């Protein structure tokens, strides 16, 4: 893959806007995006192990092309506060990250993303034996308290977002799709849930140090 020498931000904008320079600048930018997405895909290659070389190349090309269109669409929002290429990389990584996470989850399970309200923290913690009966009781008290907050103080959407994103590890993009919303709103739902859990624990005078001590390995 050949690229011209690096451009300054002003040169990128001038070349992408110039009639005679646009085609070459677009090709160079596409190369930058392609390199970025190859590095990203290499880091996540375990999620792509079922794909052959040509399929991986096609996937990377598609990501770069989608991102290139997005970069051009957003070009007038670039204010020169960062390097142009760094500004552009986030589009291609965002496209790739979203698709890879959706793909990984679909290969595992697309079922039961919603309707997990009855999942309990005790279930999640059942694989960790407490060192003594006193600690076991303290752990159960905290788990019951958190479960009560989740069941009775969260809205349904907060509960679904929290349980799936934080407890089940479902990708944010998948939960956003299921709840017919966007990643930003999923973050807000999980944020509101975190806030209520924090308030619930503090209301019972549990500090972070208290909870971590109860759930430490001893």
């Amino acid at each position: 893959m050949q690229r011209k020498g690096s451009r300054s931000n002003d040169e990128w904008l001038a070349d992408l806007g110039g009639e005679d320079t646009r085609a070459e600048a677009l090709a160079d930018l596409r190369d930058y995006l392609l390199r970025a997405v190859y590095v990203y895909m290499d880091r996540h290659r375990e999620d792509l192990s079922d794909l052959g070389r040509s399929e991986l190349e096609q996937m990377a090309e598609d990501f770069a092309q989608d991102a290139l269109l997005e970069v051009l669409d957003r070009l007038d929002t670039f204010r020169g506060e960062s390097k142009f290429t760094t500004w552009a990389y986030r589009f291609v990584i965002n496209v790739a990250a979203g698709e890879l996470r959706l793909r990984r989850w679909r290969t595992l399970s697309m079922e039961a993303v919603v309707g997990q309200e009855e999942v309990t923290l005790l279930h999640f913690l059942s694989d960790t034996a407490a060192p003594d009966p006193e600690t076991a009781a303290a752990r159960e008290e905290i788990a019951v308290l958190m479960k009560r907050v989740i069941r009775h103080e969260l809205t349904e959407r907060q509960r679904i977002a929290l349980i799936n994103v934080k407890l089940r590890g479902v990708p944010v993009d998948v939960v956003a799709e299921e709840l017919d919303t966007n990643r930003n709103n999923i973050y807000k739902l999980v944020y509101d849930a975190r806030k209520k859990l924090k308030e619930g624990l503090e209301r019972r005078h549990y500090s972070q140090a208290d909870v971590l001590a109860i759930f430490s390995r001893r």
Partner: protein
Amino acid sequence: MKLESFRAWIRQIYATRDDELTCNDVFELIPKYVDTEVAGDNPVERFPKVAHHLDQCSRCHDLYAGVLEAAELEEREQPETVAAPSVEA
């Protein structure tokens, strides 16, 4: 949920702040955050709210890590690259 995962989640819960950035905010700030890091400065000090969000949001952290890798690769391969413009929090 393993014990360590639960402990990490507890830390996230107690780290909850009233003024957290959204994913959209962070998407806009990641280039400046990454350029600061590639330039050898401490992005956590300059952009503490972004750092806080990255600790809370695995999706945004993955995006940050991907952009950082690409920017570092570019920096390594093009040492003559013009220095990034100064950034402000």
